[in-house]
């Protein structure tokens, strides 16, 4: 069996182990449940509010947009934060000290974070579909659209998340990633139609993948009539594919270069120095 194939299999094993850890560990499970419960509460409160210009529930629209946002936020922020944290605690160095360990590590991370994202989609969708009405879940097209938006969303955000993680020097500074993504979410039409924002904010929102993930999910799961509140009164599938595809291409191009650079600079004393710095900040 070739070394490469071994690393791929070990990577999947690694991803599976870490995915299980995420859902059997109170530290990571409790925040996930709290955030999910919080969102469902907000959606329930806004259930009777309608999307301006329609008779459709804002809460339901928000549920669908949040499913899209969950893909983007986890792909970028979770991936980035994990990479920065695990660089700091020496996990990456361990991978480097193991033959083909870096490949196994990255495959494992992609598997684990993708797993978290897919589970996030499912756990938002299932309670959501009982609590909210009007979701277009009956048609095969809906599911096909959901699957391609989800798949393309993963490829658009995971490599970019890895790039972010490799650029930030510590787990602490990686918190900035989460902050920035929070800002982007605000202009991505997740909680309210983007058409109600000033023109220049609409332009900014459309640069990032979060808007397109939300739009793609809305196009999959909401009635066709809801397209009327979107920019250009259309679901813009071609543009969604184009923008997410561009992010995917850029990420896949840049990530290997930056990750290799990051791995090259990894050493025991580099890990120790970062830890010392982190300790100083705590004091």
């Amino acid at each position, binding site marked *: 069996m070739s070394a490469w194939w071994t690393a791929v299999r070990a990577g999947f094993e690694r991803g599976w182990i*870490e995915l299980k850890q995420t859902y059997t560990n109170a530290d990571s499970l409790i925040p996930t449940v709290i955030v999910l419960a919080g969102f469902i509460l907000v959606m329930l409160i806004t259930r009777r509010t309608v999307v301006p210009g329609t008779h459709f529930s804002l809460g339901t629209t928000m549920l669908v947009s949040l499913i899209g946002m969950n893909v983007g936020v986890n792909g970028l922020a979770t991936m980035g934060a994990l990479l920065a944290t695990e660089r700091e605690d020496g996990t990456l160095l361990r991978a480097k000290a193991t033959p083909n360990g870096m490949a196994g590590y990255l495959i494992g991370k992609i598997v684990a974070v993708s797993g978290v994202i897919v589970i996030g989609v499912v756990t938002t969708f299932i309670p959501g579909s009982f609590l909210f009405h009007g979701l277009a879940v009956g048609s095969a097209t809906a599911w096909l659209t959901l699957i391609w938006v989800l798949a393309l969303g993963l490829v658009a955000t995971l490599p970019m998340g890895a790039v972010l993680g490799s650029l930030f020097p510590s787990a602490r500074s990686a918190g900035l990633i989460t902050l920035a993504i929070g800002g982007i979410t605000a202009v991505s039409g997740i909680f309210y139609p983007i058409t109600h924002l000033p023109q220049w904010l609409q332009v900014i929102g459309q640069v990032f993948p979060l808007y397109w993930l939300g739009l793609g999910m809305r196009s999959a799961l909401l009635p066709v009539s809801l397209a009327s509140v979107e920019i250009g009164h259309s679901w813009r599938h071609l543009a969604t594919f184009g923008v997410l595809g561009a992010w995917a291409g850029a990420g896949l191009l840049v990530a290997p270069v930056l990750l290799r650079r990051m791995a090259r600079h990894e050493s025991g*004393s580099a890990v120790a120095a970062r830890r010392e710095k982190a300790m100083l900040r705590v004091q």
Partner: protein
Amino acid sequence: MGLHGVLRMAADGEIVVDVRDLRMRYGRTDVLDGVTFAARRGEVLALLGPNGAGKTTTIEILEGFRMRSAGQVSVLGTDPGHGGEDWRARIGVVQQSWRDHAKWRVRELLAHLGRYYAPYSTAELPRPWNADELLATVGLTELAGQKIRRLSGGQRRRLDVAIGIVGRPELLFLDEPTAGFDPQARRDFHDLVHRLSDLDETTIVLTTHDLDEADKLADRIVILAGGQIVADGSADELSRRMSTQAEVKWSRDGQRFVHSADDPTRFVRDLFRQYGESVEDLEVRRASLEDTYMALVRRIEAGADPAYDAVARKFSVVAG
């Protein structure tokens, strides 16, 4: 096969680590300044030196984790700066302190990391080690299902060693392996290293700032100070060379005197010739390797220019 067996073999074994005129410079500081040494197959080599002597830098260059500024380095016949994955599979690394994989369980991580070595298995060296056997070797069988973050410092260190050797390395690097250990944990660890060196002719390169540890573990000691090698030999050889120096103490007219002499016999003869009966409380003590090493460490920690320090020079003279 005991330590002596390894020693005998090491004498004519092939060279596994070959370092020539290694230099490392950060900005204007020379961290390593012309370091040259070699380790043979099956040998346990200790890089001994005070903190900041360049031990970790040296070992990280050998591990392929750090690029050098100049010099020739060969590890298992390959330049570690360009070692591929098949080279990586033949070496084991135990760094100073790991905190990784805190959420993983002990056996789970060991078995997982072992997987990567399977494609590099050969008839003579089946890789990896069986995880359960290895846990028994390092005394962690009872903690196999424990989360790693719950291990004590000593237990964590034993797991690190197990991970370092899970791929059945031909060459093992241990960086300050017993830092922070209590005496019992240290003794257990020394036993473990002896067992390892007896297995499969594993070559071991370790760093320590503790002479006693180097003496107990190593076939050969290389003393590094201020980025330079000041002595290289077996513990016996080094102490024989050191013992040329002696400390002579005496008192005369109620006053104490201390003098260090290269030839104490002659010095004492002259002393008696000059002062005769008035010399009292005479004491002659040969400086042990430890005395000389401790003097070196004290001088360096007091902030003296380490590279050209007088004590270091004295070391160089006897080592040369």
